[in-house]
């Protein structure tokens, strides 16, 4: 499955990675060869094989419904780039 310039730009946009046209050209070659390597998978017949998401066949444990966290807003917001009145600030979101 050959990768095209537009695919790189599309992935970059979905991943919100700023990429110029030249950047995309630069990545296209590497990514193309990585996918070529990955395409070896297609040679294998996996008909009827169940996908494996986790290496152990374990099941989800459940947590008791209890409030265990306290307000640590100031602590957590110490590493925030922009806050005001306890809110994280971002450029205006237009709806």
């Amino acid at each position: 499955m050959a990768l095209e310039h537009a695919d790189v730009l599309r992935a970059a946009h979905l991943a919100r990675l700023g990429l110029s046209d030249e950047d995309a050209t630069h990545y296209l070659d590497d990514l193309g060869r990585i996918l070529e390597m990955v395409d070896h998978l297609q040679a294998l017949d996996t008909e009827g094989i169940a996908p494996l998401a986790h290496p152990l066949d374990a099941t989800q444990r459940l947590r008791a419904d209890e409030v265990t966290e306290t307000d640590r807003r100031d602590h957590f917001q110490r590493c925030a780039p922009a806050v005001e009145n306890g809110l994280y600030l971002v450029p205006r979101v237009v709806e």
Partner: protein
Amino acid sequence: MQWETVIGLEVHVQLATQSKIFSGASTAFGADPNTQACAVDLGMPGVLPVLNEQAVAMAVQFGLAIHAEIPEVSVFDRKNYFYPDLPKGYQTSQMYHPIVGPGEVEIGLDDGTTKRIRVHHAHLEEDAGKSLHEDFHGMTGIDLNRAGTPLLEIVSEPDMRSAKEAAAYLKAIHSIVTYLGISDGNMAEGSMRCDVNVSVRPKGQAEFGTRAEIKNVNSFRFVERAIEFEVERQIELIEDGGEVVQETRLFDPERDETRSMRTKEEANDYRYFPCPDLLPVVLDAAYVDHLRESLPELPDEKRARFQGELGLSAYDAGVLAASREMAEYFEVVKDTCGDAKQAANWVQGELSGALNREGLSIHDSPVSAAQLGELIARVMDDTINGKAAKQVFQALWNGQGESADEVIEAKGLKQVTDSGAIEAMIDQVIGDSPAQVAQYRDAEPEKRGKMIGYFVGQVMKASRGTANPQQVNALLKEKLDALC
């Protein structure tokens, strides 16, 4: 051309857990911004989710209430997209293996019939935070308190054919979740929100038309209005030679219209894949059976019992069973007075009228169910008559007394059934009304029935409303006819 409307609903219900779906932070509404957002909710580097058992139990209870399949295994997936109120850049949801499989909900229609709406599935997911658009120097503020609140998303099949059906379905869902106690159902606070998929097609056509999705409608009334507007818009569009575009629209209640949400509609590509931080949720039959056995009586069952066992009309049973609080109130009234029909009449008549006038919910009623039940019992044992009962109700409503008996006593409303005393009052009235007596005597016998009303009124007035009206009627008729 005759058009048919096709509607499907995605209802998001916030589950009434104490803590979030994947963290131990509180879900309480209305806290200061970001004071209930812990490291997990903030998506801090290195944090991990652990599933809340209560969220699972509540989802399963809902599934059982709509007679849905509960699959043994369900899986959480990540829905990837960027938005400031979505801290991790993905929402943990269930795309391929939801916790609740296909089920159905029965809705009542205006003509008294019912209709079954199929539920495609219901899945668990985490709520997002909130964007506050007040001006912070041209910036938007992000509050992540709501992030991670458990949501049950209930996805219907496109089975509804009118705005009224959609509203009835939403009410039925509301009534189920509040009956189960798995959500407070408070639409104003966003505990229940819905996305509406609407399309139109020429009547008789099998294929669906192109649908528009109206996002985040948050009241029963708005659902109806949004659909009505949208249907009209789509029909006009098509009749003018245009085409409906598949898009997301927003309902503006102030202008009573829907409008396109994004100018440049981007093709969404959420890149769903199984969340590697969570393992498959496996529910064994014993667990599901245990929840099934502990389910409360549900609206449908209650309605059937009210109709079948208590002999209420379909309409009365439907109204009384619609909300758990209403039904519970009614049952206490009924048990206290011993008569279901009287109880139903009072709850839907005097009580509902008073609540509506003051904009109160039954939860806030100043007259308790026990007080009302006792009041009705006093009517039934002839302690007071109907007219006095209304006065007693009003007094209880205003807090002038702890019980019906206390009010009856204090206001002297006890019914007079002593026929000697009533006869004395009748003699007095007849004596004071020679002209009316003459008219009565001269009237055709078949017209006299109507004329007796005047005398009844006078006697009741003389008794300050406490005379037994049946007795007054009978004695008056006897005495007047004797004069003829």
